[in-house]
C-alpha cells in the first residue's frame, strides 16, 4: 500500500464518519426546530378558536384553509376528566378536498366555556411539507458531503504530490544506489520542509560514512593482499631451494613439498582476493566483442582434460550466438569459473550441459542436493567443503555479472543445478 493510498483512504473514512455524525445531528436539530414551530402555531391556532368560541363569535369554516383543520365537539364532564388536558401527536387525517388521508401533526386540548360545558378541540396541520423538508435537507447534506470530499481529496492529492516530491526523489535515488560506485553522489534537494532537509542530511551523512568504510575495507583487503605477496614469495622460494638440494631424505622432501603446497594455496587465495577487489574497483577497462560460444568451447577443452578422471558426460548445445562487449580477462574468468564449478561439484559419471541461447547461458550439471541460493554467491561459502575449492569462484562470477549488469540465477530442479546468466 502506498503512502498516498493510505492517507487518502484514512481521510475518506474519517471524513465520512465525522460528516455523517454531523449530518445526523444537523438533521435532528432542524427537524426539532420545525416541529417546535408547528406546535407553537397549533397552540396559537387552538387558542384563537377557543377565544372565538367562548366569545360566541363565528369560527372560520374549516374548509377555507385546506392545510389547517380542526374538530370541535362537546364532551361530557366525565370524558373531559379522563382525557389529558393537552397533548400533541401524529395521526392520519382525512382531507375532504383531496379525498384522501394525510399524515398530520395534531394538537388536542379540552376546555370549558362559561356555562360549564366541556369541549374537545383537535387542530391539525399536515406534515407533508415537513417530509419534503426532510428530503431537501438529506439531499443537500449528501451533495455537500460528496462535493466536500471530492474537493478535499483533490486538493490533498495535489498538495501531496507537490510536497512529497523530495521523498520520492530520495526513494528513486536509493533504488539506483549501489555502494562503492563512484558516480553515485549523495542525493540533493531544494526543499524547505525541515523534515525532508533532515532526512536528506541523515541519508547523505550515512551514505558518506558507509562509502568511507567500504572504501577502507577495500583498501585494507587490497593492501593486505599486496603486503602478503613478498613474504609469501620469500617462503615459497626458500622451500623451493630446499627442495632442490641434493641428498635430502625422502620423508623430509615430502614434508617440505606439503608445506609448499599449503603456501601455494595461500598464494592462490591471496591472488583471487586481489582479483576480486580489482573487479569491484572496476580496474578491467578494455573491452572487446566476445563470442561466448567460442570461448566456452576453448576453455572447456582444457578443463575437460583436467577432470577426465571424473568421467562426466559434457555437452555444449549451441542454440544461438551469445555475444557481449566486455573485458577479455573477465569473460574468460566468468566462463572458466562456472565450468570448473560444475566439474568440481558434479559426482563421477554425472552429466554437464552448457546451453547457449542468444540471450542467455545455462550451465546445468547433476548434483545431489540443492545449494543455498542465498549464500551460494557469498565469499567463502562452500557446500560440503571440497578440499580444493577456494569458495571464491562463484563470488567472482557474481562480481563480474554485477559489473556488466548481467542477471545470474541459481535453481535446483530434478537433481540438477542450473546456473543461468541472462543478458537483459
Amino acid at each position: 500500500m502506498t503512502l498516498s493510498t493510505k492517507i487518502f483512504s484514512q481521510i475518506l473514512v474519517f471524513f465520512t464518519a465525522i460528516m455523517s455524525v454531523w449530518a445526523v445531528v444537523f438533521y435532528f436539530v432542524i427537524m426539532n426546530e420545525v416541529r417546535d414551530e408547528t406546535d407553537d402555531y397549533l397552540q396559537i391556532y387552538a387558542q384563537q378558536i377557543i377565544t372565538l368560541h367562548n366569545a360566541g363569535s363565528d369560527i372560520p369554516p374549516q374548509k377555507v384553509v385546506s392545510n389547517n383543520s380542526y374538530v370541535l365537539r362537546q364532551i361530557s364532564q366525565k370524558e373531559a376528566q379522563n382525557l389529558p388536558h393537552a397533548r400533541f401527536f401524529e395521526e392520519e387525517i382525512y382531507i375532504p378536498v383531496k379525498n384522501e388521508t394525510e399524515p398530520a401533526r395534531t394538537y388536542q386540548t379540552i376546555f370549558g366555556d362559561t356555562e360549564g360545558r366541556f369541549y374537545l378541540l383537535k387542530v391539525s396541520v399536515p406534515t407533508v411539507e415537513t417530509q419534503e423538508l426532510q428530503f431537501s435537507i438529506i439531499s443537500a447534506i449528501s451533495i455537500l458531503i460528496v462535493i466536500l470530499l471530492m474537493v478535499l481529496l483533490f486538493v490533498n492529492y495535489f498538495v501531496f504530490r507537490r510536497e512529497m516530491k523530495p521523498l520520492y526523489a530520495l526513494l528513486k535515488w536509493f533504488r539506483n544506489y549501489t555502494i562503492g560506485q563512484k558516480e553515485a553522489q549523495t542525493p540533493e534537494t531544494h526543499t524547505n520542509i525541515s523534515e525532508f532537509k533532515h532526512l536528506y542530511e541523515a541519508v547523505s551523512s550515512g551514505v558518506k560514512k558507509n562509502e568511507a568504510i567500504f572504501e577502507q575495507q577495500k583498501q585494507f583487503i587490497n593492501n593486505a593482499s599486496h603486503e602478503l605477496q613478498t613474504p609469501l614469495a620469500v617462503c615459497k622460494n626458500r622451500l623451493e631451494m630446499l627442495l632442490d638440494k641434493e641428498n635430502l631424505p625422502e620423508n623430509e622432501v615430502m614434508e617440505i613439498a606439503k608445506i609448499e603446497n599449503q603456501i601455494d594455496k595461500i598464494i592462490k587465495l591471496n591472488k583471487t582476493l586481489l582479483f576480486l577487489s580489482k573487479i569491484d574497483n572496476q580496474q578491467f577497462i578494455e573491452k572487446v566483442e566476445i563470442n561466448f560460444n567460442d570461448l566456452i568451447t576453448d576453455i572447456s577443452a582444457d578443463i575437460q582434460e583436467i577432470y577426465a578422471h571424473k568421467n562426466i558426460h559434457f555437452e555444449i548445445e549451441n542454440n544461438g550466438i551469445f555475444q557481449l562487449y566486455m573485458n577479455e580477462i573477465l569473460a574468460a574468468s566468468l566462463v572458466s569459473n562456472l565450468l570448473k564449478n560444475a566439474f568440481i561439484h558434479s559426482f563421477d559419471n554425472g552429466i554437464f550441459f552448457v546451453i547457449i541461447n542468444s540471450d542467455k547461458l545455462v550451465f546445468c550439471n547433476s548434483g545431489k542436493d540443492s545449494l543455498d541460493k542465498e549464500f551460494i554467491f557469498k565469499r567463502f561459502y562452500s557446500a560440503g567443503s571440497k578440499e580444493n575449492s577456494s569458495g571464491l569462484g562463484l563470488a567472482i562470477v557474481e562480481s563480474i555479472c554485477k559489473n556488466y549488469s548481467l542477471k545470474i540465477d541459481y535453481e535446483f530442479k530434478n537433481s540438477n543445478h542450473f546456473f543461468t546468466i541472462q543478458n537483459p
Partner: protein
Amino acid sequence: MKILIIEDDRSLCEVIQQSLEKERYIIETAADFNSAAMKTAIYKYDCILLDVMLPDGSGLELLKKIKAENLQENIIIISAKDSLDDKLSGLNTGADDYLPKPFHLAELNARIRSVVRRNSGGQNHIVFGNIKLQPNNFQVFINEKLLELNRKEFDVLHFFINRPNRLLNKEIIAEGVWGDSVDQADNFDFIYSQIKNLRKKLQTAGATAEIKAIYGIGYKFIEL
C-alpha cells in the same frame, strides 16, 4: 652472465641471489632507487630484475631512465602489484618481461633464459642434452632427427626444457602447461598420462635427458 637484482626486501633478494648463483650467474644487488640508478649507470648487466615498488622511487621511473640512456640491458619487472596497468606500462617502456610476485624460482630462471636468448639474437632454439626444441615452429629434434609430439606433449617438454634440474611439483606443471583453469583440480592424472607418453617417446628416440619422477611430488628434467 651478470645479473642485477633491484629489490628492497632483503630476504627475497637473498633467495633470488642464492638461486641464481646456483645457475652460475654473477649477481649484484641493489635495495633502493639511488644505488640501483648508480649501478646501472656505471656497470653493464646482461639482465636486470626490477621491483616496481622501491622505498625511494618507482621502478618504472628507473626503467624509463635506463631506457632513456639507451642501455641494452634485458629487464624483467618483478612486482607485488599484479596489475595490468603496471604490466602494460612496464612493457611499453621497454621491459622485456613481467613477473608478478610471488613466483617460482624455476619460473624466474626460465624467464631470464628466454629473455636473454630472445635478445641475444640468432639462436631461436633451446638445447638440452641431445634434444633441440624450436619454439617458433613447434618442432623437436633428437640427434637432429625430428620427434613427433602432439601439442600438449610439446608444451610439457617446452616447460621442462626451460626449467632443467629443478624439482617441479604437479601443480606448477599443470598451471604452466594447462593454464590457470587447473587451480582447483583434485586429481593430476591428466599430467601423469601426458608425461608418461612423452617419456616413452624421448626414450625410444634415444634422448640423453629424461623426466624423472620424484617421490610422487613432481618431476625433474635431468641429463642422463
